[in-house]
Structure formats: C-alpha cells, structure tokens
C-alpha cells in the first residue's frame, strides 16, 4: 500500500486551476520531493491532502485512509509553508497543547515535548513566548509540532526555505533520519535540497505534474549530457565548428568565468566522446580542461518547466 495515493486531484479557484488532475503514488518510508516554481500548486496539493481545502474533483488516500476522514489527522503530520502559532504561548506550551489534541497522557506529552524541542534545537527557547521567536525558530517549532504524534506520513511545505545554511543542513539531516519511521512528502523550490534528501521527485508546473522519477533516473533520462571545455583563447571559432554536428544540441560560451568556458550539450554521448576531441585538435585551440559533467537537477528542472523558475 502506498503511503500517499491520489487520482485526478484537481482544485479550481474560479477560473484558475491551481492543481490540475494530479495522480501520484508515494511508496512508504521514502522521501518524496515535490518540486516546482512558486505558484505551481505545491501548497494547494499539500492543503488538499491535509483536508484544509476541499478538492474540486478527484480523490486522495493517505496511509490507506481517504482524505477528509477524521482518522487521517491521527496519522499525519503537517508543517505549513508559514507556520503560525499563538504568540502568547511558549514553545513548550504549544507542543503540550498539540500533544493534548492527540490525547497523549501528560507524562508522555512532557517527555515528547522536551525530546522534540531538543531535536529541533529549541531547548534553550522552550520557555520563551512564541511571539518573540524569529522566523527560523518558528519553522523549527513547526517541524517539532508536526512530529508530536510520530506521524506515519509527514507533509512538509517548504520546510527549509526560512532557515539559514546551518539550520537547513540540520533539518535536512533530520528529514533523512525520519525516513526510517515515516514517509516524508516535502514540497520545495530549492533543487539542491531535493538532490540531498529525496529518493523520488515529482516536478510540478502551473498545476500540472510534469514528471515523477527517482533523482538518478531523472538525470539519466531528461538532461542531455554536457561537456565542459576550457580554452586559453576565444572559443568562437570552435563553436562554429561544433554546432553543425548532428549529435550536438547546443554549444555556448559560459560568460561568468575568467577563462572562457565552452559548454556543449550533446544528444549522443558515445559519439561525442570520440568526435569532440578530434574537432578541438583540428581547430588548433589551446586546451586547458576537458570534462564530461553530470547534468544537475537544475538543468533538468529548467528544461522541464521552461525557465519559469
């Protein structure tokens, strides 16, 4: 049984289709990255899964429970993109209140609250009012409150976007550790986070799911391979020699480096491996570096969403 399954999940706001027939299956104990530019429909999808908005059509099941069933809330954890708390409560009080909603006994609740505060690095601020918390501290408290019930499925909407680099590393490491006990559905627009922690990635743009695949498969399938060639002199002549070749997609000069670097995207790597050095040699250019680079998720992403990000 998949941890998350949805069929043709659609949400319309008037004429705007925020989510367009999303069909998806996320296996248990995996970290699923839901990737897309701002306004792609990521938050809408998460809110539909949590029952905080009603779908216009379609259905979804979380851990086998149909979305909208009260039982679901016992099993899921949720961190919204901008978590909001009662400013008059302390961080610890908020976790105790959450534990109370899950009907944990007061002893268990206190233990769980302290354990989670330590886990997200808020032990020192536990007795301070949330009203005085920084954006990053609220985000950490948001993660803690989503874990109170040891959820079977955890929805994190942009979990690290408000954090500084250290906080970000901590939270991503935490997500990796959580994988053993829960399934994580994480929406983000930050590609490097997906590359770091996600097993599978779904790319969404303008409400539509563009593709779902493992990160490795995605790199193999979508992005053309790229050769980086560094020369001592201007690569213009070389570009004109490479571009007409049938195995080439694009050859361009990358401007932002001291030495002119030539990036050559190819369709057929094996042909290019043999042909490219020959062309360089024939051109008489002084070669400094020649490298076959793996495509980054960013290349794939930009290609799939057409530069919308």
């Amino acid at each position: 049984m998949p941890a998350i399954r949805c069929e043709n999940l659609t949400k319309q706001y008037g004429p705007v289709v925020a989510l367009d027939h999303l069909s998806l299956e996320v296996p248990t104990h995996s970290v699923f990255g839901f990737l897309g530019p701002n306004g792609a429909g990521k938050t809408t999808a998460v809110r539909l899964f949590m029952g905080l908005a009603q779908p216009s059509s379609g259905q979804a099941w979380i851990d086998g429970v149909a979305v909208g069933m009260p039982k679901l809330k016992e099993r899921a954890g949720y961190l919204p993109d901008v978590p909001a708390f009662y400013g008059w409560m302390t961080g610890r009080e908020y976790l105790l209140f959450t534990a109370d909603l899950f009907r944990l006994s007061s002893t268990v609740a206190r233990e769980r609250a302290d354990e989670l505060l330590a886990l997200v690095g808020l032990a020192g601020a536990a007795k301070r009012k949330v009203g005085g918390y920084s954006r990053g501290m609220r985000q950490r408290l948001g993660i803690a409150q989503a874990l109170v019930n040891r959820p079977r499925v955890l929805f994190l909407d942009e979990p690290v976007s408000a954090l500084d680099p250290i906080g970000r590393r901590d939270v991503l490491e935490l997500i990796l550790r959580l994988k053993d006990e829960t399934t994580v559905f994480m929406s983000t627009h930050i590609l490097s986070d997906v590359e770091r922690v996600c097993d599978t990635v779904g790319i969404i743009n303008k409400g539509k799911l563009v593709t779902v695949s493992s990160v490795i498969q995605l790199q193999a399938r979508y992005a053309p391979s790229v050769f980086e060639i560094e020369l001592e002199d201007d690569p213009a002549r070389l570009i004109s020699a490479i571009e007409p070749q049938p195995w080439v997609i694009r050859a361009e000069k990358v401007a932002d480096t001291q030495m002119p670097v030539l990036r050559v995207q190819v369709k057929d790597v094996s042909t290019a491996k043999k042909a490219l050095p020959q062309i360089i040699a024939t051109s008489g250019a002084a070669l400094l570096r020649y490298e076959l680079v793996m495509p980054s998720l960013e290349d794939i992403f930009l290609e799939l969403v057409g530069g919308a990000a």
Partner: protein
Amino acid sequence: MKGLAALLKKELKEQVRTNRIIIVAGVFLFFGLATPLMYRYLPELLALAGDDMGSILPPPTAMGAMAEYASTMVQFGVLVIVLVAMGAISRERESGTAALVLSKPAGYTAFVVAKFKAIGATTLIGTILGGLACWGYTYILFEEAPVWGFFCQNALLLLYLLLTIAMTLLFSSLFRRQLTAGALGLVSIIVLSIASGLPWFGKYLPGELVSWGNYLLVDEPTSAAWGAVAVTLVFIILSLYLAGTILQKKEI
C-alpha cells in the same frame, strides 16, 4: 466533538493570558459601579448645572438604578462581547493558526464550541462581577436592593449575551475579515431585538428576554417569556452548529 477538552483548556488560558477576561470584567464592573451612582445623583448634577430638568425627573429608586444598569449592559455588554468574539475564528483563519490546529485531531464544531464556552465563561464572570457591584452599590446608595428579581434579570441578560457570542462566532466563521464579522453580529442582534416589538411572534424572539427581565426586577405580574428563552437557546445551538459546518467547508 473531537479535541474539545484540549481546545477548551487552550481557549480559557487565552482569555486570561490575552487579558480579555480583565477587559470584559473591567467594563462590567465599571458600569456596575457607575450606573447606580449616576442614576442616584443625576437630578442633583442637573440642578448644579443650572438645568431644571432635575425637578421633572421622577425621584431615583433602587429599582430604577438596577433597570438602568440592565439596559446599559444590553448595549455596552453586547458591544464588548462582539469585539471579543468577532475575531475569534476569522483571525485564526487569517493568521494561519487555525490551519495548524485543524490539521490535528480537532473537530470543526469542537473548535467553535470551545471558543463559545470560553468567551461565555468570561461573560459569566463579567456578569457576576458587574451584577454584584451594581447590587452592592445600589444597596449602599438606596439602602434597599431586590435580590431575586435582579438575579433573574441578570440571568436573562447573560442568556442574551450568550446569543450575541454564538451569532458573532457564526459570522466570524463565515468571513475572513473580523470587522465584517463584528458588524454583522451587531446588526443581527439589533435586528432581532427590534423584531421583538412585532405583534404575535415578537414575544418569542430573544429581545423579549430584556423586557421580561425588567418586569421580573420590579416584581410586576407579566406573562413569562419561556418561549423567548427556548427560541434563544435554539438560536445559540443553531448558530454554533452552522459555524462548525461552514468552517468545515471553508478554506482554512
């Protein structure tokens, strides 16, 4: 109603921590003390100001002071309660705090009912303090103060205020802007109170609670308005039920 106990505990704490209870109790206490005093010395104050209206006014009585307090609270009490209740749900939706709570095992109706009970408790405390202050001060100033009639009048006033809370919460779940919720809560309670002047069915409307209270205070024979009491209770339950149902359908 899932999570009612936890939600109620939180709401009651909120009433205390955000000083709502102090504000409400303060307003009731102020009018409880000020009304008998103003009422007792109004003729003299007017005379001092050189106005001979004072001689036309009937001599102030304990009953008059207490009736004056009740009619003041029907206005100012309602206003304060609307101000406290109008943002209760809309502000939580607007700020996002509701989204976190309602993604937990907390029912929508429980969410509304917990707020009703907590604001109701604050109102109860305010009514008791204001009533005691008014009764005590009236007794000091007039050397008499009816107990039973005044108690009944305040109980009916409390019921009227509870209806105000329920209706304001209904509008607070309907609208994201708390001012809209407050304005509509206020307008609907005013309309209901005006409508109680209408022939034959008017006496079954909540506004009738206020005039029945006045009769009970002066111990004058009148037909009991149990019908209005029943209708008010139905309105309260209906408002809370609708608020919960609407909230469930709304975007949180």
